[in-house]
């Protein structure tokens, strides 16, 4: 149960990070607060969009779904079924892989690091690890 709660809290944190970047993309937030200075470089690059939509928007949608599913999972009784845990892992894994791709692009192509992207990468990595550990425990 603790792990599901942790996933819900992490998903909520990730949702705010994604919202922050998306609102910036929409022009509703001025300069990104970024210690490295790389956020603007990353956000201005063509890799800030994917299939015609801002990458941050994918984050907003993904974290919202993860938050909802994790809250449903938290509501499960002490003898939880496998289904919500599998759903969390299935949702988190593509997000994790996409984050790996984006991090590689930052390091190898753009040569700039956005700390908000790093924050999101840490969050999705933790969610993926927790959800996989939940599935593994039930098997």
């Amino acid at each position, binding site marked *: 149960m603790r792990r599901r709660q942790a996933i819900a*809290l992490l998903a909520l944190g990730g949702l705010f990070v994604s*919202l922050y970047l998306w609102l910036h993309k929409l022009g509703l937030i001025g*300069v990104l607060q970024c210690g490295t*200075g790389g956020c*603007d*470089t990353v956000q201005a690059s063509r890799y800030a969009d994917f299939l015609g939509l801002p990458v941050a928007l994918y984050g907003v949608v993904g974290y919202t779904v993860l938050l909802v599913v994790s809250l449903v999972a*938290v509501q499960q009784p002490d003898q939880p079924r496998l289904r919500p845990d599998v759903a969390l892992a299935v949702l988190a894994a593509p997000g994790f892989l996409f984050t790996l791709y984006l991090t590689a692009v930052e390091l190898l192509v753009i*040569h*700039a690091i956005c700390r908000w992207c790093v924050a999101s990468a840490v969050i999705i990595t933790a969610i993926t690890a927790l959800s996989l550990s939940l599935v593994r425990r039930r098997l």
Partner: protein
Amino acid sequence: MKGFYVLLAVVGIGGAVWLVYAARHKPEERPVPTTAVPAAPASGFRGYTLGSDSAPVHVAEYSDFECPFCAAFATVQMPQVRTQLIATGKVQWRFRDFPLSSHQYSRTAALAAQCGGEQGKFWEMHDQLFFNHQWAQTGKNPTGLFRQFAKTVGLDAERYDACMDSQRYAGRIEESRQEGEALGVDHTPSFYVNGRKYTGPPTSDSFKALIDSLTAQPKR
């Protein structure tokens, strides 16, 4: 379980307050340029260069003075590039301005460098701006500091001030940015080697390996 929902509510409210705060506290208007960007000069200025015109390899660097990765390249890699590739006559290096719109003082710094160039000290100002890059992290208006840089490299302060006030090179900087945009520059620093986009790591070793391979090709 109750504690979890309390924690969730705290995170939710905290995040919402943060987003509202960020949306309401937009930064001040950019101080420079305060006037419309002048038309590009008809002279077709192509950027300041280092190295011989007859060098077999020409590299164009599209850079932003406020960009930390450009500063890292200028301070860590460029000294090696100058020694190993430019001084040896293998490369002519061309600096092109590509000020990112998201950087508050990029154009001010680019103007300062161009005003240094007007007095024959572009590269000296370039080095001052990159080797003393703390100005890019403070968020404070660096105009006074740039004036100090100008004095440090031996510029005539009055001529420098007149140059900065007139913004006479703003059009040149914008022309360079537009040129980079047309070429497909999507981040800084970006490099073009003999007109072709360089996609390798921005290190002196990688440039040396590439340029050695280009200059080693047998002539037909």
